[in-house]
């Protein structure tokens, strides 16, 4: 009877195991890299100041545009300048240790460096004003920001997520004057009348899903 295992079988087995382990590590590293540390859903990051949207946007009811004023007119929503914080914190919580970096930033004229939680890769073009003008509300993409004590991403901005909406944007459209509204539960209940609203808006605004899914809309 011939031998089942040749002399080199051991080496081959070891090589195969090594390759399998390497492939596993590579898969994990690649998956991690494509997600990007900064875009993992639900993760918070260390910020210079523990700024709370739940407190400011939720409890105090400050509109998003008070701080992210560029969102209607430019591609970026931007972060508030230090003196925007100071419109209120020049008078309240003026001695809070938590806010010391804000005061230092104003005194030294050095911007606060916020850690991003929802960032696209550089090769993707995105435009806030285009979405806001058509009435895609902030909550659709950023989730219930007004309930976040520390900011986290609500969706990982993968291509299929963008395309899911671009193929059929109608149901996502809301009155453009109310884009910063966070709670749409009342709206989502009356399905039938809003199906008509969606169809009408798509027609009136000349939104063409065929054009919206072309590569050069987002990769230019």
């Amino acid at each position, binding site marked *: 009877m011939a031998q089942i295992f040749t002399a080199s079988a051991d*080496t081959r087995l070891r*090589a195969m195991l*090594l*390759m399998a382990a*390497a*492939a596993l590590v*590579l898969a994990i*590293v*690649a998956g991690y*890299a*494509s997600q*990007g540390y900064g875009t993992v859903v639900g993760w918070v990051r260390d910020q210079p100041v523990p700024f709370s949207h739940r407190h400011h946007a939720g409890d*105090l*009811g*400050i*509109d998003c*545009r*008070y701080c992210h*004023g560029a969102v209607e007119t430019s591609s*970026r929503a*931007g*972060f508030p*300048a230090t*003196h*925007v914080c*100071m*419109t*209120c914190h*020049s*008078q*309240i919580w003026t001695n809070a240790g938590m806010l010391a970096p804000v005061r230092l930033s104003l005194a030294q004229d*050095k*911007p606060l*460096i*916020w850690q*991003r939680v929802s960032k696209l*890769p*550089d*090769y993707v073009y995105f435009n806030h004003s285009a979405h806001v003008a058509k009435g895609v509300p902030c909550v659709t993409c950023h989730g219930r920001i007004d309930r976040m004590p520390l900011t986290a991403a609500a969706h990982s901005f993968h291509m299929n997520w963008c395309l899911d909406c671009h193929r059929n944007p109608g149901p996502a459209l809301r009155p453009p*004057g109310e884009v910063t509204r966070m709670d749409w539960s009342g709206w989502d209940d009356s399905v039938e009348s809003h199906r008509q609203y969606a169809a009408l808006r798509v027609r009136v605004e000349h939104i063409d899903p065929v054009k919206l899914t072309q590569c050069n809309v987002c990769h230019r």
Partner: protein
Amino acid sequence: MKRAILLVLLCLLPAACNDMGRQPRSDSDEPSKLFADGKALQAPPEGTLARDDPARMAALQNRPPLTPALLQRGAERYAIYCTPCHGLTGDGHGRIPSRGFPQPPSFHEARLKAAPSRHFVDVITAGYGAMYSYSDRIEPRDRWAIAAYIRALQISQSMPASALDEDERRRLEESGS
């Protein structure tokens, strides 16, 4: 054999890098080594005039004609930038003063009712006492729109219910205020 494995691993390594995502450009909120102060977004040098500055100055000088669209714009901008402190009706009881911010005056006091619209535009432009300037976030035309809306608020709070017509009175009663 070992060398072959190493070679295969080396060839696979680039797949783990995604360099396209970080291109050699700076977004406006990112730091940059290009400038001494380390910011990618540079403030224009002292004394710079933007191309549309003359138009903006003219818009600040000349009050736009009063239209329903202007009032609506004013209501929206007022809700964003002024309600936190001055309140929805302009009585000065917003949420921020209730947390310890100095109490702003009511827009319905005689002095501010008599004040010209330009006064409100000037306060938004330059600030007033404890209130900071909002000129970085509110365009000149919108400042006039807000002033117009404050005028509407002032009228609304001193209007006798008898001046309303049948339909408006019913809606007022239904809304319960």
